[in-house]
């Protein structure tokens, strides 16, 4: 089966989690609250140990000249930030006691 990879080849191990390489905090937060804790934990366990490698890889490029696959890697780590709160603090996908309230990103950097 021919597949095209979303992430740089150095991060092939994270390819199963490429679905988290989402542009925009809104999309990343939406995926977080649709996920189970097991799914969030699996993503965290795979991506967290690779953080420094990802930062080193990304910092080879000026931020405004990131190749497409590197951009995806950056967004994947933006998603890891969003996912780190349930995993490290809340033990549930939503912020505890946040009920129906929502705070939505309406303006963000393009990259």
């Amino acid at each position, binding site marked *: 089966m021919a597949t095209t990879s979303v992430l740089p080849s150095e991060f092939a191990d994270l390819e199963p989690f490429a679905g988290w390489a989402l542009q925009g905090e809104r999309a990343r937060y939406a995926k977080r609250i649709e996920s189970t804790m097991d799914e969030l934990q699996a993503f965290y366990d795979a991506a967290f140990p690779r953080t420094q490698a990802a930062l080193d890889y990304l910092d080879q*490029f000026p*931020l405004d000249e990131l190749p497409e696959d590197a951009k995806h890697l950056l967004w994947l780590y933006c998603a890891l*930030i969003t996912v780190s709160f349930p995993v490290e603090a809340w033990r549930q996908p939503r912020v505890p006691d*946040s009920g129906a*309230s*929502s705070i*939505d*990103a309406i303006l963000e950097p393009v990259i």
Partner: protein
Amino acid sequence: MPHYTKPAEGSWTQHYPELGTDPVSYDDSISPEFYELEREAIFRRTWLNLGRVEQLPRKGSYFTREMDAAGTSIIVVRGMDDEVRAFHNMCRHRGNKLVWQDYPREETSGVCRQFQCKYHAWRYDLQGQCTFVQQEQEFFDLDKADYSLAAVQCEVWEGWIFVNFDASNTTPLREYLGELAWGLEGYPFDKLTQVHRYRSEIGANWKLFIDAFVEFYHAPILHSGQYQPDEAAKVASYGYEALAYGIDGPHGMVSSWGGIAPPKDPSMVKPMERELRSGLFGPWDHADLGIDELPPSVNPTRHKNWGTDSFVFFPNFMILFWKPNWVLTYHYWPTSYNTHIFEGTAYFVPPKTARERLAQEYAVVSFKEYGLQDANTLEATQSMLESNTPVKTFPLNDQEILLRHLHHTARRYVDEYQKTTLVGA
């Protein structure tokens, strides 16, 4: 014994005797009638911030704002002379909304050379002058000079755009903002052009959400889940004391310690914070602002443990300065007595590397996680304040002085407005 010196009177609150120390009532936050008075007395009569000049990057750049609280929609535009002006968003022919896209109730922005009405094509230049009337000869002695867009007072302070809907207002913006603001002048806001903005519809009176952001008495408790467990217990046992409070007229500020970065003991913070060297207080590696010293209103006590300052510019604009050199603003736009739209905007020095970008992302995402906790608590407060209980007043401690001041100020504006309008009635 307080950890940080309080004024000679023994407390911050008693330093400002007009505030009193009695329990307060929140009747000003649960009444449709009081809200209608606030719209007149406050939102139609004070300087209101709409953001920054960088939102209007070019000659002809404009944005519209729906100003429910003031009961109007406005256009804010940078003219060919680079002046920023504001107008009521209404065509002078038959009152059509002049600038909108697809949905008349939605805000819009763009760049243009002139405004043209969608209805009968009357045109206005960027200074609001009517420049074209379709079939002008059909009208009766119509002089275009009499049909300029209705102007709204608009002034810029340190790159922040403000409007005032009171056509008879004679207080210049800088004078209105007062000494606390003067002490912020020179802060290089224009260097902080990396912007993240969040919006939320909140089911509570606008003042109650400001209340939640001007005291940190709640932080060790409501936000305890954000700390590592040992740290949470320690923080709760210390409680909270600010470094200093300041009040000048309707405006106030609180200066706070915290966010010591990097932490002495890395286990104090969450693993992701350690990886990215960032946290709620911002990136551990400070951005370069290119100034030797912060202006005097920022960290006014020059305390080494300083972490963040929060300024409240009455009625609904807050600016927070963080030690790692970034800024957060809050706006609270009432839509009814028990609802408002909250906007939080983070301003950073543009990141040069992905590492810097992710450190900033961590800070804004933390702000959202804390904000979600604050927001929901608010709806719970509003519903109980509105409920039919016999409890009518509530105590406020010295660390809650800015709440006391905010509600006191709102009542004072309403009282003064009522006095002036009742004269001769």
